[in-house]
Structures are given as C-alpha cells and as structure tokens.
C-alpha cells in the first residue's frame, strides 16, 4: 500500500528515514540531480499512505549494442518498511522501464558480504554474472548480478563469466 512516484528534488530533504540506514549512501546533491536530469523515469520513490518516504530506486540505461542495459544504482527501503515486498516492486518498475527502453538486461553491483540483498536479487531472477575484485572502498569485492529482459530471449547476457575481473576491466 504504497504510492510509487517520480522522485523530486524536495524528496532529498525528507528521505532521512531511508538514508540514516548505514548501508544507504547519501551522495552529493549533483549526483541525484544528474540522475534526475538524465533518467527521470528511473528515479522513483515509494511513499506511504501518510506521506513518508519508505524507499526509493535510482537507475539508468547505458551501453552499446547488445550491452545496452538498465542499471540499478541504488535500491533501498527504510527499516520500518522492510519485508513488505517494496524492493521487489521498485525493481519491477525499473525492469519495466528498461523493457520499454528496449534494453537487453538489467544489472547491479552488490557487496559480496551483503547476503540478504544477494538472496533477494536471486529471488527476483538475478544471477551472479561475474565477480569484480576490490570494487568497493575497503577493498571489498562486488558481484555484478544480471537479469535478462525480453530482448535477450536466449539469456545470453546472464551466462556467468568464469573468472573475476578488475574494476578497470569493466565496460
């Protein structure tokens, strides 16, 4: 029971219930603005019936040719509003937008230690496509997880790589 709507600049002033969570990064203002300027339809918040921001998703499309894909930059839900399926709803939304943009797949990066999130993404149909060495500060590795969209019926984009890559090898 949620309203999913476009994120506006005013939301930045009241997303603290979500952003005080230690795993949710608070970026510089222009970072959000760049996303809002370039991919407004990928910036969605989930708002409760009483007007609180419950969570949000940020994403974009990028890549060329068969690498044209949707990317999840952040998806996060405030502690009080977890276990309601909100993250799934937001991810569905992002996948829907990516479908409309004729993307081949959606990908995301997650800390290898973040088991809760990895499990959730797996439930949503994502697989670990490759491991990216020392991607995060503090030298933690990332999993690059992917889910093919309808434009990639053979799910070519999801065939895992055998070897890990370094961040500078990312395309």
């Amino acid at each position, binding site marked *: *029971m*949620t*309203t*999913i*709507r476009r994120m*506006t*600049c*005013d939301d*930045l*002033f*009241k997303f*603290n*219930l979500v*952003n*005080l*969570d*230690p*795993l949710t990064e*608070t*970026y*510089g*203002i*222009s970072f959000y*603005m*760049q996303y*809002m*300027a*370039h991919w*407004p*339809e990928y910036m969605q918040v989930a*708002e*409760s*019936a*009483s007007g*609180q921001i*419950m969570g949000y998703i940020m994403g974009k499309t990028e890549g060329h040719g068969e690498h044209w894909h949707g990317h999840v930059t952040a998806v996060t839900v405030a*502690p*009080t*509003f*977890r*276990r*309601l*399926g909100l993250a799934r*709803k937001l991810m569905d*939304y992002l996948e*829907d*937008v990516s479908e*409309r*943009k004729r993307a081949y797949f959606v990908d995301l990066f997650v800390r290898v230690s973040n088991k809760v999130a990895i499990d959730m993404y797996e439930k949503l149909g994502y697989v670990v496509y490759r491991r990216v060495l020392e991607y995060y500060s503090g030298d933690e590795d990332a999993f690059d997880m992917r889910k093919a969209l309808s434009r990639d019926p053979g799910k070519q984009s999801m065939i895992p790589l055998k070897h890990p890559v370094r961040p500078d090898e990312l395309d």
Partner: protein
Amino acid sequence: MSSVSERRLRPIYDSLDCGNSKKALQEADRLLKKQPNFACAKVLRALALLRLERHDESRKIVEAVVAELPTDENSLQALTICYKELHEPEKICELYEAVVKKEPTNEEFLSHLFMAYVRVLNYKKQQQTAMALYKAYPKNPYYFWAVMSVLMQASGMDADETSLMSRSVALQLAERLLLKMVSQNKLEVEAEVQLYLIVLEKQENYEGALNLLNGKLANLLRAPNLIKEKRAMYLQKLGRWKELTLFTQELIRQDPSQWSYYETHLEAMFAEIGCPAPLDNGDGACPASNENHTSSTNNEAVNSNHIDKSDEPPADGQVENSEQKAAEGLTAPAESGADGADAVGPAATARFLLQLRMAVDGRERAPLLAQLRLALALRQRRLPQPLPIDDLEEVVRFIRCYGDRPCCFSDVEPVLALVSGDQVSTLLELSHDTVELNDRGVPFSPAAMQRHLTWLQLCQHYSDSGRLGQTRLERAAELRRFHLATAHFSEGLLDTELRPNDHYLTLAVYCLYDEWRATRQTNHLLDALALLQCGMDNSPSNFYFKLAAIHIYHLLGAAGAAYTVYNTLDLKSIQLDTLSYVSSRHVAAQGQLAAAQLVFNTVLKFFNNVKDTTDCLIAAYKVGSFQQIPEFIELKRRLAHSANYLLTLTDCILLDLTSVASQHAQTLELLRYSSLCAAALSPVQWDQLRDNRDVAVLPAFSDTERRQRDAATALSWSQDLHLLRARQLTLRALVTVLRLAPPQNGDMEQVRQLAAQLAEAARPADPALLEDGTLQLSGPLPSRLPRLLRRPHLPLLSRLLETAAELVAGQTPTQAVNELLTLCERLAERPPAGAGPAELFEEAALLTETVGVAAAVWGALHSWTAPTRPTGKRGKKKKGAAPAVTESECLHNRVVNALVALAQSTSRLVEETGASLTEQSAAQQLGHLSLGATPQEGTLRDAADAVRRQLENSYRSSQRELAKVLQYKVEYLTACLL
C-alpha cells in the same frame, strides 16, 4: 587545435584534474617559456593560480587573454571554468557574446552562449539565442530550448525581473510555438510532448491536455503510468468527478497497491456527491446523500460478534460475521433507485472495495485500509455507512491481518479516529488477543513480537487516555523486560541492521520522557539515557536511539556527550542541511566550543561545495528533461536560502571572533583571515529563507503529538528567525566596529544605527517569541531565543556601542556609562536556584560570548582613542608618566572594569556550575533500579555508568573551555585600560 598543442597541454590538464595546482602552474610556465603566446596555456596557468588562492594574478591573466578574444574551444572552456570558480557567471555570457559577434552562426558558440544564459537564469536571452540557433541549424532541441525559455519567463523564476514577460503573453507564445511544430508533425520525442503538456497545464487548458492524451502524440509518451496519472490529474482539475471516480476505480483494479489511486478515488467520489470536504463541527449531513442506511456502529454488535480468538494466525480470506453480512450487501440490489444512479457514491465505492479486498491477495493492505478511510470520511461528513460493517471490528481486522509488519501502526493510526472513546479498551483487548505469547508472557516468534510491538504502539497512542492501568514507569520497566526477553530474536544480525526488538526500548524511552515532562525529575532522563546507551551498544546502527540520545543529552546541557553521539550519525551532503540542527544549534550554546567548530565547519563545507548545481540545470536542457528545470532552480534556492546555513555561518564567525583572542590584535587578525565573513554579512533576503529541517524522523504516536510537534516546529522557526536577526546584527555591529580604523566623520552614525537596531531586536513585538515551546521527544529542541531575550544581553551590546560612539565623538556620556554598569550588574545576577544544567551552561556560554563581543568592541575603541599608547603593558607604563586621566578616559576605564567584573563573575558561575553538576551527576541514584533490573544484571548498570561518565566529561570540558575563554577576555579587557 592541433594535436601537437593538445599533447603539450596534456600535463597541465592532468595536474589540474588530480588537484595538483602547483605542478600545473610549473607545467604551464614551462610551456609558456616555449610558446609565450599560447592562449590556452595562459588560461590554464590562471586557473592554477586561482586554485592556489592567487586571485589577483589570475584575474589579470584572464583579463588579458579575454582582451585578445581567443576562439579555440580549449581556451574558451578553460575561461568558462575560471569564471565559474571566480563565481562570475555573467562574465561567461559576455565572453560568448563577444565570440558569437565574431562568428554569428557558429553552432558551437551559440550553444555555449545559450548555456551561459542558463547559468544566470536569463530566460529572455536564452530564448533569443535558442531561436538564433534554430534558424541557423533547424534541429528540434534548439527549438524546444526556446519554448522552455519562454515558459520560464512565465514562471516568475527569473533572476532579472525586468525581463519578465507577462505570464499569459508568454504562455500564449509558448503554445503558439508548439502548435507550429505540431502542425508540421515535427514532434519526435517524449520530452517534446511532455513540454507541450507542461505548457497546457500552465495555461490550465486541461481540456486540451486531455485531447493530447487521446491523440496520436500520446504514443510518444513512454514512461510507465504517465498517461494514466496525467489523465487522472486533468479530470480532477476539470472537476469531472464521476468520470474520475470510475477511471480511478479502473486504475485500482489494474494496480490495487498504488495508494494514490485510492485517495483520488475517494476525493472524486465525495466531490461527485457534493460532499468534498469533511465537516468540522457541522450540524447536519451532507445534502446530496440519497442513501438510506442506518449507521452500523453498535457496541453490542461488537461484543456479540466478537472476533475469532483462535490460536491460528489469521489466514487469508477468513470471512467473519460482519463480512458475511457485508457480502450479502454486495449481491443485494442497488439501494438507491433502479436506474443504476448509484454507480458512483459511497455505496458503490464500499462495495467495490469490499469486492476488491476479497479478490486480491491478502497480503495487499490497501483495499482494507481504503475501506477504513472511506468509513472515516463518511463519519467526518456525517454520512451513513452504506454497508453493515462495524468500524471497530474492521480496525481490529486490519491489526489482525497486518499487525506482524513494522508499519502496521503507522498505517492504522490515521483511522483510529473510528474508534470511539468507550471502545478503546475493547480495541486494545481485541488487538492484544492477536499476539501469541508463551507461558512466561513473552512473544514466542519474531512475528508475534512484531504484533506485540504494534499493540504497544497502540497503547502509546492511547497513553494519555488513562485506560492502560499502568503507570508510565511500570510500562517502561515492562518494556525493558520485553526487550531483554526477546533479545534472542536478534541474534546473528550484522551491526548494520536494526534489531527487530529495538522498538521496545524506543517505547520505554518515550514513557520515561513523558514521565520527566510530567514530573521534571532528572533521573527519568538519566534512566532513558541508560536505556539508550544499552540500545546503542547492542544495535549500533539504530538512528532512533541516537537521535533520542542527542535530544536528551542537550536537554541536560551535556553538549559534549550529544556531540559524541551526533558524530556516529555520520551525516553527509544534504543531511547536513536537514538534520545537523539536532546538535549544531546547541553545541556552542552549551559551552562545547571545540566541538562546535567541527560541526560548523562540516556544515559550512557542504554549503560551500554545493554551489555548482548549475551544470545539472544545463544537463536538463541538453537531454530535454524540461519538467526538472523549475525543480532544479527551486532546489538551488532552497539551499541558497537555508536558514540553517545562515544560522550556522553566523554562529561560526561569532564564535571565531569572540572566543580565541586574548588581545585585540588577534581579533583583527582573525577578521582579516575570515574567509566566510563576507558571505555572512551579505544582505539576507528574509522573506526567502527556508526551514529545511527534517523534524519527522523520530515517530509521533498520535495526532495530538503531531500537532504539538508542528506547533513546536513553527514556534522554533519564527524564534530562530528572530535569533538570526539578532545575531546577524551583533556580528554586523562587531565587524563594522572592527573595520573602522580609526573612525572618520559619519562612521559612528552607522554604529549608532546598529545599536538602535540591536535595542529594537531585544524587544520583539510578538510576545510569542519569548515563549518556551512544548518539549517533546519527537520534536525539535526549543530555540535559544527566549534565553537570549530574557536577560539584557542585547541591551548591553546596544548601550556599549552607543557609549563607544559618544566617547569617539569626544563627549562624556556619564549617564550611558552608569546604565551600562547597571546592565552588567543585572547580567551578573545568578540564574534562579533550581535552574537546570542546560539553563546554567547556556547562560554561562551566552555571557561568555557577550563579554567576548564587548571586549572586541572596547578593544577597537581603545585602539582609536589611544593611538599613541599601543595596547599592552608598554602602553600602561607610559600612561603612568602621563598627566592626570581625563573624564572620558575615566569613563572608558569604568566600562572596562565593569566588563572585567562581568567576566570574572561569569567565571565563577562556570566553575560552580561545572562542579555542582559533576557532583550531582555522581550522586544521582542509578536509574536502573526503578526500571526493574536485577542487581545481577550488569549491562544496564554499565550503561548507566557510561552515561554518567559522558555527562561528567561533558560538563567538565564545557567548564574548562568557557573558563579559558573568560580568562582570555579578562586579559583582553585589562589591556584596554587607559
């Protein structure tokens, strides 16, 4: 540019990019030695100098290069960056205007010129440039830049109001421009159609907008839900309520979880039957209701149809008595007229929602909540309930179905108004029955625990109703026991996760806080802090605990302890605007000067770095995200006019100028190197200031509490504005005086004016500004203003400035000096016995600051009136040999002595306060006994000890810091003796 030049510039770019300006400068010098006329190298050299803070040199180079007007892209880009960093965006316009004059149809230059106008929000020139571009290069984006620029002229968001076209003329022009493209079938992308919609919306031409949605242009609109939402919005604007009711019904069917659809549906339905707004205390039902139901509110019915209390968790689709009744209502023929006239109305909506609820997955809360919202809306409008549904029973149903979710209480809280006063006990009883407890009375699963917490939040909601049969302290102790007994549900969680049982402690803290509000006995706050300390030890990421602890530490005057917790919040970026207020407004005010510097610097650094949001604005034009453009401009304003920023800035500079100096020369030095002073003293647009505080993080449990919070927020906002005014005046007066060296004729007039304004600020016309706001844990701490105004701090400064002006004028203001002395004596009076620790420290810190300002003012006066006698000991020796002291010198010295006496009495106050508080804290009864902890239980005792240490350390360091400042001020003032 040739690849050779490109290659030669590369090392300079690289050094600049990695922030090594020194190396960039060397590289540029080396290159210029070989090629002295290389324009771009010169500009990059200027940029390096700029970043090395060598502004004058940099500016000279820039001017010289611009005079020759280079037209290569690299030089122009580099010049743009220079002007950006010099904060002179208008110069970028001038630069490209000149370049375009040289080459009027160069696409690149024209487009840069357009963007240069975007930086300064000159919409008129944006429009002209975009049209010139389109004429030379007929590409769609240029055309739509022009349309957007016209639209912005209609928005009144212009930097230059004189270029404002009349709103309607501008809108008509924008539409005409668009229609031209439409008629030629030239709209190609979503952004262009969206712009068309924006123009129609601005003109309130919703009919036209609806037509657009029905036409083929709508095919270009791709974003999910966009068309649906726009259609709903237009129908709403057009007041086509019946259509909207049916349309939203359809939308809800398609997506039963999107809450905004339900809200619009209810609004439309009530508007359609002629009952748009709830009646206040109206006398009578809405007119248009033609439904003939009797209200089903009936207590006996509740008791006889009591809710199934089986041990099983509520399964999906359980149909109970009232639901059966209601289901019968579904198949019954329409009540009001056989012509189907009730297709829209409460009955139709009620039936629709009930049907929907039975059809959807039981995990979806929206249909049931919408039913409750409908019931509430009907009741507020004195309309009968169309279906035989019992409200209380439905509220309990919601709690039964969804009580195991952490958000259940916040969902259901708005509809608790459906439960009448005499039903509260029944509600609590019935909802308690949904909680499964083991034989020790403890929830036996995480889900049961969450149900229990939901129930406890209901109790907190009704805590003032006197129905709970427990004192607050008993409840706090019980909550604490539950917290311990459910700890095993949180085992194995990472530190980054909140513990599911944390909320027991939060609720206990609320109880203790309420008890403190009722009794004002400090030990309840200490107990609360001990619980919070346990909570933070055990659940280090729980920000509710942290915010509550910061609030309570500040209430106890322990800013040092508050600051320690504040740091663990790790606020970043925009949070430094929205949340830093929890500590930033109190740290210095409670004597933690070093911590205050750190807080201030972090906040100010954010604001100083945030300025370049303009690049995003330019990006929005480039990609055609037109709807973001007004939003971005508004965001920029919200930040530029943040009251939090100005308060922090003013506090920061005042602290700087009044605390560290022990002699006047140091103050002057500090002023000279204060890079922020100019910003602090630039004129304030008072009517533009924004309150960006986010006060809604800690939960409020009832409507009353929220209303109180809103009232407290509003009061503290108007008080903080006045506080800012007073502190701006103080700073302005101080800086004005410090900059007079020595004063010329007429200078003192300005000082006198500031003195008069300060005196005026001391007596605000609105008596509400002197009130202490209501305290509540979920609201902001009160403003410092009442404390400032309660005692004659501002009158003292005002009188001091006047006296200084008179002495400079060669008068002998005996009367003024006598008054000053009286004011000093009044300020030296002790705060009343029984004043709390916060009050004592805040008073002491205020006095310290007042003495600091006074010392600087008198130091300045001394430096003018005794030009032959430099400050310090050497001066005084000479004085010994000088002839008898004049009358005005005598008055001068009397003021110094009075200020020294004030500083000394403040020192004593600081010392006594520190000592007695530390003593009190040590003697404080350990709170944990009253919370029912057993003596064997170490954690709470350890936590209470840790809290006590925090308090004592904080008190001691506040004492130390203030004492040191006061000692400096005594030295400072003594040197001012003639």
